[in-house]
C-alpha cells in the first residue's frame, strides 16, 4: 500500500497504530466528491436535503447563474463527503445552461469543480423508465456510478416488486434503495457509500460518452425497458389518487377555475393571515424606537438610530410574514406537484400572449421576487422565449411591492367587506396583481408579434409528476433559506440605503432660526424639488420623489424612505404610523397614481443587475428599464388624471 499519503510521513501519526484506524494512512483524499444526478421529479433534492441537512451552501457557478448546491455529509466510516446537487436532466445532451452544468460536472469538464469520485444517480422507484435510460447513458462516462432507488417505500406500498439484485446485475451498476423523506431512510445508502465507493477509486473507466443519436436513444430506452421487464413488476396497487385528482384539476373548465381560486386564496392569505404577526413586529420595532429615544441624548445620533436605523429596517422586516406566506404557498404547490399542472393549464393562454407554458413557473416565482424568477427562465431553452420572459418577469408583482401596496391600501382603502365576504383591501390587492399579470401578457404579446415578428412557439414538453404530500422538513428548509435571503437583503442593501436616505434627509442642517421643518433644507428636498416638475403631472409630491430614489435599491425601501421623510419632517408625527401620515398628506388620486407607478416602475437595482447577467448584455437591461419607466409614467399619469376627474384629487 504505497501511496503519496502513506509515504509522506505525518508527524502526528502514531507509527504503530493499526492502519485501518489511522486516517493518515488512508490513501484516499480527505474529501470525497459525490455528485447527485437524476431526472426531474426523482426526489433528488429531497435526498440531498436528507443527506446534508443544514450543512448546505447555495451559490452560483462562476460566470453562469445556474444555482450550485453543495453540502457536506459524513459516512458511517467517518469520511466527510462533499455532495453536489446537479440540475435535473433526462440526458447529458445539455440543451439548456442548467443541463450543460450537469454534463460538464459529470464529465469533469468544469475546471472550478472537482471531478466527482462517484455519481449518485437518483431515480423515483415508482417511475424507473426514463431514469434507467439515463443510467445507461451515464455508464458511458466511465465514472463510478451508484443507482439510488428513491421513494422505495412508495413503490412497496403500490406493490411494485423490484428485484434489486437483478436490477443491479442487469444494469451492471450497484443499486441501493432509499426513502429520502423518512428518518433513517438513507441509512442503507450511507452505509453502502463506504463499501461501494472504495473499490471504485482510481478505477474510473474510459469515457466513451458522446451526445446520443436518435437511434442510440431508442436502443438505450429499449434496453431500459428490457431491464424493467426482467427486474421490476407491475404495480399491484397502482396510484389511482393522482389520476383522480387530475380528473378534476386538469379538467378544461374546472381546472382553470381551481387555478384562479388558488391564486385568489393565496393573495387573500398574504394579506390577512400575516396581519397579527406584522402588528407584533411593528409594535416591537416601535418599542425599540421609543427605548432608543429615551436612552439616547437628543440630537443627530438619536435621530440616526431611531429614524434611520430602527424605523427604517423595521419598516422592511415587518413584511417578512407576508413574504413567507407567499413562499409557503409556492413551495407547497411545487412539492405537491401542482406547478407542472399549472403550466399545462396555462400553456395555451400564455401561448396566445407569446409566452411559453414553461414561462409560467418563472413568472409565478416572480411573484415572490423577480430575481429567482429570472434565474428560473433557464428552463426555457429558446433564446427569444427566454428573453421575452425575462423582460416581463419584473412586471409580476414581487413581494417587495407588497410593503408599498399594503401601506397605501391600508391608508386609503377602507377595510370593509364587499359581497358579504370579500375584503375590499384584499380585492384591490388582487386587482394590482391582475394588472401586473395583464401588462406582462400585453408586453410579451407586443414583443412576440411586433419585435420578434415570429409566430412559432417552441415545443412544450413536461413531465407531470405523481402528486406527493409536501414534507414539512423540506418546506421548512426552503422557507428558512428564503427568510435568510430576505433578512440578509434587509440587513445589507436596505440598511445601507436607509443610512443614505437618512443622510440625504438630515443634511445640510437647517440654518439657525429656521422655522420650517429641518428636512426642507436637506439634500433630499433639493433632489425632490429638482424632480418635482417631471413627476408633478402624475400627481407626485416631492416627498414621493425623494422616496423613489432610494427605492431604486429595492422597492420596499421606498416605504421606509417615506417613513423617514415624514418622520423627520413631522417631528411629533414620528411616533405615528406612516400610513396615517400619508392619509393626511396625500390625495386619493396621488395614492392611486403611486400604486399604478409601482405596477410598472423598474425600481430594483438587483433585478436590473440580474437581467444584465442573464442576458449577457447591457442592452436588454436598458430596454427593460426604459420600457418599464415609460409604462409607469403613462399609467400613473392616466390614473391620476382619471381620479382627479372623478373628484378624488
Amino acid at each position, binding site marked *: 500500500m504505497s501511496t503519496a499519503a502513506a509515504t509522506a510521513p505525518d508527524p502526528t501519526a502514531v507509527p504503530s497504530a493499526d492502519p485501518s484506524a489511522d486516517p493518515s494512512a488512508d490513501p484516499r483524499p480527505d474529501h470525497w466528491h459525490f455528485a447527485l444526478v437524476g431526472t426531474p421529479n426523482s426526489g433528488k433534492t429531497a435526498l440531498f436535503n436528507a443527506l446534508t441537512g443544514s450543512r448546505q451552501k447555495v451559490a452560483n457557478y462562476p460566470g453562469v447563474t445556474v444555482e450550485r448546491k453543495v453540502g457536506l455529509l459524513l459516512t458511517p466510516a467517518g469520511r466527510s463527503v462533499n455532495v453536489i446537487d446537479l440540475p435535473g436532466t433526462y440526458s447529458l445532451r445539455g440543451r439548456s445552461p442548467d443541463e450543460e452544468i450537469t454534463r460538464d460536472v459529470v464529465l469533469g469538464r468544469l475546471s472550478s469543480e472537482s471531478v466527482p469520485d462517484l455519481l449518485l444517480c437518483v431515480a423515483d422507484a415508482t417511475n424507473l423508465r*426514463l431514469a434507467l435510460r439515463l443510467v445507461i447513458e451515464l455508464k458511458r462516462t466511465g465514472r463510478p456510478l451508484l443507482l439510488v432507488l428513491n421513494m422505495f417505500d412508495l413503490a412497496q406500498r403500490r406493490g411494485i416488486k423490484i428485484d434489486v439484485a437483478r436490477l443491479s446485475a442487469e444494469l451492471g451498476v450497484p443499486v441501493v434503495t432509499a426513502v429520502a423523506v423518512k428518518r433513517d431512510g438513507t441509512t442503507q445508502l450511507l452505509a453502502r457509500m463506504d463499501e461501494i465507493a472504495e473499490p471504485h477509486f482510481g478505477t474510473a473507466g474510459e469515457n466513451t460518452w458522446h451526445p446520443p443519436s436518435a437511434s442510440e436513444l431508442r436502443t438505450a430506452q429499449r434496453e431500459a425497458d428490457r431491464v424493467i421487464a426482467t427486474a421490476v413488476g407491475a404495480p399491484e396497487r397502482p396510484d389511482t389518487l393522482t389520476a383522480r385528482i387530475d380528473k378534476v384539476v386538469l379538467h378544461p373548465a374546472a381546472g382553470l377555475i381551481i387555478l384562479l381560486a388558488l391564486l385568489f386564496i393565496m393573495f387573500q392569505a398574504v394579506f390577512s393571515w400575516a396581519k397579527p404577526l406584522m402588528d407584533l413586529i411593528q409594535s416591537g420595532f416601535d418599542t425599540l424606537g421609543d427605548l432608543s429615544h429615551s436612552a439616547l441624548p437628543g440630537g443627530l445620533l438619536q435621530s440616526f438610530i431611531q429614524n434611520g436605523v430602527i424605523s427604517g429596517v423595521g419598516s422592511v422586516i415587518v413584511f417578512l410574514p407576508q413574504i413567507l406566506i407567499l413562499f409557503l404557498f409556492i413551495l407547497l404547490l411545487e412539492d405537491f406537484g401542482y406547478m407542472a399542472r399549472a403550466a399545462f393549464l396555462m400553456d395555451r393562454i400564455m401561448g396566445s400572449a407569446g409566452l411559453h407554458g414553461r414561462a409560467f413557473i418563472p413568472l409565478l416565482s416572480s411573484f415572490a421576487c423577480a430575481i429567482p424568477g429570472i434565474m428560473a427562465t433557464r428552463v426555457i431553452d429558446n433564446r427569444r422565449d427566454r428573453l421575452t420572459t425575462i423582460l416581463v418577469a419584473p412586471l409580476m408583482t414581487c413581494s417587495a411591492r407588497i410593503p408599498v401596496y399594503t401601506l397605501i391600501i391600508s391608508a386609503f382603502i377602507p377595510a370593509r367587506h364587499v359581497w358579504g365576504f370579500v375584503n375590499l383591501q384584499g380585492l384591490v390587492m388582487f386587482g394590482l396583481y391582475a394588472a401586473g399579470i395583464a401588462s406582462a401578457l400585453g408586453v410579451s404579446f407586443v414583443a412576440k408579434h411586433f419585435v420578434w415578428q415570429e409566430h412559432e412557439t417552441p415545443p412544450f414538453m413536461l413531465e407531470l409528476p405523481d402528486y406527493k404530500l409536501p414534507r414539512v422538513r423540506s418546506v421548512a428548509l426552503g422557507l428558512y433559506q428564503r427568510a435568510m435571503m430576505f433578512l440578509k437583503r434587509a440587513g445589507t442593501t436596505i440598511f445601507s440605503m436607509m443610512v443614505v436616505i437618512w443622510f440625504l434627509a438630515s443634511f445640510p442642517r437647517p440654518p439657525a432660526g429656521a422655522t420650517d421643518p429641518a428636512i426642507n433644507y436637506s439634500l433630499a428636498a433639493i433632489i425632490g424639488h429638482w424632480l418635482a416638475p417631471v413627476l408633478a403631472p402624475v400627481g407626485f409630491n416631492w416627498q414621493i420623489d425623494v422616496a423613489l430614489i432610494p427605492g431604486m435599491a429595492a422597492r420596499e425601501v421606498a416605504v421606509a424612505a417615506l417613513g423617514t421623510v415624514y418622520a423627520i419632517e413631522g417631528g411629533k408625527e414620528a411616533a405615528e404610523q406612516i400610513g396615517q401620515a400619508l392619509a393626511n398628506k396625500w390625495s386619493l388620486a396621488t395614492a392611486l397614481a403611486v400604486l399604478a407607478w409601482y405596477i410598472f416602475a423598474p425600481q430594483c437595482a438587483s433585478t436590473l443587475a440580474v437581467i444584465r447577467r442573464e442576458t449577457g448584455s447591457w442592452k436588454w437591461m436598458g430596454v427593460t428599464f426604459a420600457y418599464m419607466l415609460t409604462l409607469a409614467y403613462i399609467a400613473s399619469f392616466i390614473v391620476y388624471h382619471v381620479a382627479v376627474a372623478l373628484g378624488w384629487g
Partner: protein
Amino acid sequence: MSESDRPHNGHAGLEHAGLGHAGLGHVSLPLGVAPCGFRGRVDAIEVRGHSGGLPPAEIENRLLELGFVEGAIVEILHEGAIARDPIAVRVNNATIALRRREAMAIIAVAEPA
C-alpha cells in the same frame, strides 16, 4: 416494420387513418389528432419539418428522452381548454404534457383498453 407496410399513410386525420389494416380493427394515427381517451401503442416517431424553431432531429430526441419510443403504450388522459391543447399523455408509467403539434410526430396504433 418497413416504410411500405406501415399502416400510417402520412395524412394527419382520423378519416385517413388505418386504411391498411382497417379490417383487423387496427387504427394508426398521429397522436396529435387523437381524441382524449385514445389508447394505443407507439408505432413510429416521425418528425416532419421544423417545429417551434427546432430541427426535426432535436424534436425526435426530446420525444425519445421522454419515453416515446416504438412499442410504448400511450393514452391521452387530459386535454387543455383552448383547441383541446395541450394534451397529457400517459406513456407506460409516466405522464407527459405536450402540444398536439409535437404529438403529430407520434404515430400510434389503437390498442383495446
